[in-house]
């Protein structure tokens, strides 16, 4: 679901970023107002879970892959505004260091995965959770919320891809950016997400949410939360070690092909906007270390990504933001 650079026109990228600016501003304002300062470091832990979730690629028939995002999970743990900022920072790190998702398309990726996903997922969860009382019912609500959230997010991405050929074409009639219209992009994105990837998001959300509720309920209900619980540390470590499982999925996710791959997908040409577009040289492209076995590079990338996310948010908690303990909610 990470839209690479040059799949969307720069104009669309600018519009999506402009849309996200007020969302980020409101989210930061809400976090300062509602989230206790002591809980700010947990944003980093949430972002780390999202980052790790996105590294577990799952294959589906047809040679394409996808992954869970964990946006609904963070919104359940910390609220949708915190989830928006957590996932945005995770996406920024992925784009800058690992080349996953474009720099120009950052606003669009944030709109899909850091705005639509957590807010829709959280709204659905709240709607169901208010009507059930048992903890199992809340888990079901979390599962349904995450499923609807990731599908809403995938639909938004599919629409962004699909409107490109209708809006941007060269004199020969060839698409300048993403060459597939809505008739292809929507089914291509939604079939995977309505089935396997949606299920992966449900499993990831429910499993981690149930685990956290059991071993660290303080994270869900209490206002203290600056220390990462040992069980959570263990879970993060286990996920890092298991990330090479994501390499078992061969193939590229739909809409994430490189310029050399796109012509072979059936359109027969490489769109001009992609061929001559912006290119960013990431430090660890595709979560790999040049010359090292893929699995080791993947684990190192996961460890660096998780560590940086937690460090960034913990340091931010020292700078300020978040309300002081004891202030009225």
């Amino acid at each position, binding site marked *: 679901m990470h839209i690479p650079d040059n799949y969307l026109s720069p104009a669309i990228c600018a519009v999506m970023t402009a849309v996200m600016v007020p969302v980020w501003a409101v989210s930061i304002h809400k976090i300062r107002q509602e989230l206790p300062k002591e809980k700010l*470091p947990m944003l*980093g832990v949430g972002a780390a879970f999202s980052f790790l979730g996105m590294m577990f690629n799952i294959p589906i028939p047809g040679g394409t892959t996808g992954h869970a995002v964990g946006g609904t999970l963070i919104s359940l743990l910390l609220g949708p505004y915190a989830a928006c900022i957590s996932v945005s920072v995770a996406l920024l790190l992925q784009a800058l260091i690992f080349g996953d998702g474009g720099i120009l398309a950052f606003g669009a990726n944030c709109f899909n995965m850091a705005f639509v996903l957590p807010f829709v997922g959280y709204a659905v969860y709240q709607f169901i959770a208010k009507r059930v009382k048992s903890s199992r019912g809340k888990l079901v609500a979390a599962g349904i919320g995450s499923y609807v959230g990731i599908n809403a997010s995938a639909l938004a991405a599919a629409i962004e891809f699909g409107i490109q050929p209708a809006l941007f074409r060269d004199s020969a009639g060839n698409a300048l950016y993403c060459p597939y219209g809505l008739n292809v992009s929507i089914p291509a994105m939604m079939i995977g997400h309505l089935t396997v990837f949606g299920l992966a998001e449900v499993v990831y959300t429910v499993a981690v949410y149930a685990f956290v509720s059991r071993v660290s309920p303080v994270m869900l209900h209490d206002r203290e939360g*600056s*220390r*990462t619980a040992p069980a959570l*540390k263990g879970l993060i*470590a286990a996920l*890092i070690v298991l990330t090479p499982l994501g390499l078992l999925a061969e193939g590229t996710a739909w809409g994430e092909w490189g310029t050399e791959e796109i012509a072979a997908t059936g359109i027969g040409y490489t769109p001009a906007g992609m061929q001559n577009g912006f290119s960013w040289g990431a430090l660890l492209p595709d979560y790999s*270390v040049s*010359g*090292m076995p893929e699995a*080791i590079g993947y684990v*190192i990338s996961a*460890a*660096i990504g*998780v*560590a*940086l996310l*937690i*460090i960034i948010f*913990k*340091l931010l*908690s*020292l700078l300020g933001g978040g309300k002081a303990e004891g202030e009225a909610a």
Partner: protein
Amino acid sequence: MRMNLSVMRLIGRVIDSDTQFHRGYQTPRPAPILRLAVAFVCILLCALSRNAWFTLAVLSVELLRTAMKPPRVMAHILRPVAVAVIFAAAFTAPAIFLGSPGSFGTITMKVCESVLVLSLMNEEVSWKETTGALSSLRLPGIVIFTLDTTVRFLVILGRFSNEMVEAVSLRGVGKRSWRTAGTGGILGTTFLKSQQMATATSEAMVCRGFNGSYAPGRRRLRANSRRQHLIDGLYALLIPLLIAGFIYTQRLMTAG
């Protein structure tokens, strides 16, 4: 002089925090000597490695360890790392324009890794434990004694000089440069004070039965020493693991 004072104050803060942070560690931890050895092996192997892989792998683990610390401790650890990385990047930046961007990245990363390892060790092992560990290495007592007293006196004299500068500033009228604040007098007084302190320390040591030989305190094993041995043994395994990782990455480079 201001700069010297800043250095002294910095050391003072390190020692102060040393005592503050270590009050919290009650659970059994690996022996300081092992921590020193692992940190030394880490830094040595990173310096010896001819590619970025080994350094990157160690760096990722150290960053994860840092990420698990409380925010204030983390900031304390990362401050010297940030300064070292900025300096290293500034010094090696010309390599980018001279056609060797890889050297820029590798050297900066090695500096980051080395300072991070030291900074983490400084956070987790107190100065007292460090000198105790050095004595286990059969380092002459007089060397450890000199190290111990030097650091302590740096802190004490740093505070003393700082108080004098503050007193002179408060008594002065208007904005005065440090050059006119009686630098020579302050330094001279600090020197005389150090002489007095050295004499007082020596007399106090004689009073407490000092016979000329210095035996720094070694760490006593706790009651549950079996658990301590297990922790030490597991931690000691890191050394062969690090060496194996180093050899593996060097072979990988040769094969590539």
